[in-house]
């Protein structure tokens, strides 16, 4: 999975800045996408491309249980969020609806990858290749449980062994 990185060098990016409360009444996903990250980065919509990744610090997606948050990012074209850690409800929402991949990374990847870098994520080898900088980083593997839901394509497609 290849794409370019949009980097937010901060911790605690909360669901209120990912999709502000006034848009929780919007049911059209394309319209939700117009307001993704609006609370933090009003230029997000104009710069995001299909297949991009977000890179951020700790506790990404903290706050509300709104599934609108991963939906808004996903329908903006974001295929994965790479972060030092995630808040649990956002993490599960991202996986349950197969909206995007929440990928936990280590400090080296966080500090090394720059805005605009092209990276290649391989969830089978748990490696992230920085094509721009020609470097490889490890990602934390998904837990068995999350891996199975991702593999199935979401919560409703998951069937126990």
């Amino acid at each position, binding site marked *: 999975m290849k794409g370019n990185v949009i980097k937010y*060098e901060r911790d*605690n990016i909360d669901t209120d800045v990912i999709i502000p409360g006034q848009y929780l009444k919007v*049911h059209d996903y394309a319209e939700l996408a117009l307001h993704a990250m609006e*609370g933090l980065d009003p230029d997000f919509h104009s710069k995001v491309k299909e297949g991009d990744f977000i890179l951020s610090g*700790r506790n990404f997606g903290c706050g*509300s249980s709104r599934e609108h948050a991963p939906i808004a990012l996903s329908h903006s074209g974001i295929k994965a969020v790479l972060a030092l850690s995630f808040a649990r409800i956002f993490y599960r*929402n991202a996986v349950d609806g197969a909206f995007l991949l929440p990928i936990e990374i280590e400090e080296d990847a966080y500090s090394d990858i720059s805005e605009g870098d092209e990276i290649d994520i391989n969830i089978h080898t748990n490696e992230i290749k920085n094509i721009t900088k020609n470097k490889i980083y490890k990602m934390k593997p998904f837990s068995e449980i999350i891996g199975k839901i991702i593999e199935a394509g979401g919560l409703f497609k*998951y069937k126990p062994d």
Partner: protein
Amino acid sequence: MGKTLFEKIWDAHIVVEKENSPSLIYIDRHLVHEVTSPQAFDGLRMNNRSVRRPDLTIATMDHNVPTNNRTLPILDQTSAVQIQTLEKNCKDFGIQLFDINSPNQGIVHVIGPQLGITLPGSTIVCGDSHTSTHGAFGALAFGIGTSEVEHVLASQTLWLEKPKPFEIIVAGKRKNPHAVTAKDIILSIIKNIGTSGGNGTVIEYRGEGICDLSMEQRMTICNMSIEAGARAGLIAPDEKTFEYLRGRKYTPKNYESLVEYWKDNLKTDSDAKFEKKYTLHIDNIAPQVSWGTNPGMTCDVTESIPSPEDFSNGDQNQKKGAEQALEYMALKPGTPIIEIKIDRVFIGSCTNARLEDLIEASKVVKGRKLSPHVRAMVVPGSQMVKKQAEELGLDKIFTNANFEWRESGCSMCLGMNPDILSPGERCASTSNRNFEGRQGTGGRTHLVSPVMAAAAAIEGHFVDVREMDLN
């Protein structure tokens, strides 16, 4: 080895559990509101599914509802549609709904306990992160997303990863329990363990400082567990818990025999093991005021705005976060908290809109007047809270002081109904989140207790409420 309370509740609800697989957990109560449910009901229709246990599912509308005048039509069309959609969904699927005109309408986490729907030892979910509130009754209660809402509607179960138990001991006694409240305890905890300190855990709050709290105060504590990143927070039930639920509208008929069972079973064994521990000593804690843009950015009312340099110990993101927060909040390091002037006051939300909260705030307000440059709203958590408060004459105390007395709902906690801050406005708020734009684009939120919010409304700035006569 013994088990924690959380582990006992978990084990009692396992439908399927295999090693290295998610556990399928049974859900006893499902609370539904208008914002996170429409797509879930659409999903049921698309797949030709019904609601498995409509009798265990309860709905109300709280996030979108206007809090000014319930006799007028809702002006915001998208809100009106979301509310009508919930009405239709509940009708189509046979779910009990407390609608906008019901005497039982209110914030979902206020009405659950009030109606006796929240029970000790049960599993409770809702498409809302503050579902952790119900943990005050010794329930395992947590927020879920819309996909999971659909899963629970269809199956009354959820596939879950088992969180780890986290023990937080609240030790000691508060010297002035009217001025130093449950809100100050939980804000102190989050300040110390951080907004991700509870990630992947279920917190059990224990100790003298917890036992001393009333049920409504315990709800304030558990409510904000999510702000520490925890999946849920809970408190073992005791006589206060059992008494609170006795004789409520939906309290089970065999209640007393349930109480006997709960007394024997709903406690952590003395040899149980917690993965993580933290102790807060509350003998000398001060009233808390948040200064930044997450609930961990909080300090004592007697302190000054910190400098980002204070956070520079090897962690650039923390320092940067503090700089960004101060810029958004338009605050300068070194400014004493008590010199921060406010424009708005919000007393409400699932954290602090219960009867005791309003009683405590009214003691500050009684016989005084709102500061002339402040606009203040009191928004009871439910219609029942509103009625009880009016029977005590609290509405008159607030309106005589020029506060607005409003209808129940989430109101200015989250900026999705007409109650919002204007850009740049600074608010003393009893709610739970001070994120950027949370109370309206560009709005600046300081999280405080109801007593602090009331005092700030009167004085126009924060004050050390320990110096006020609150008895």
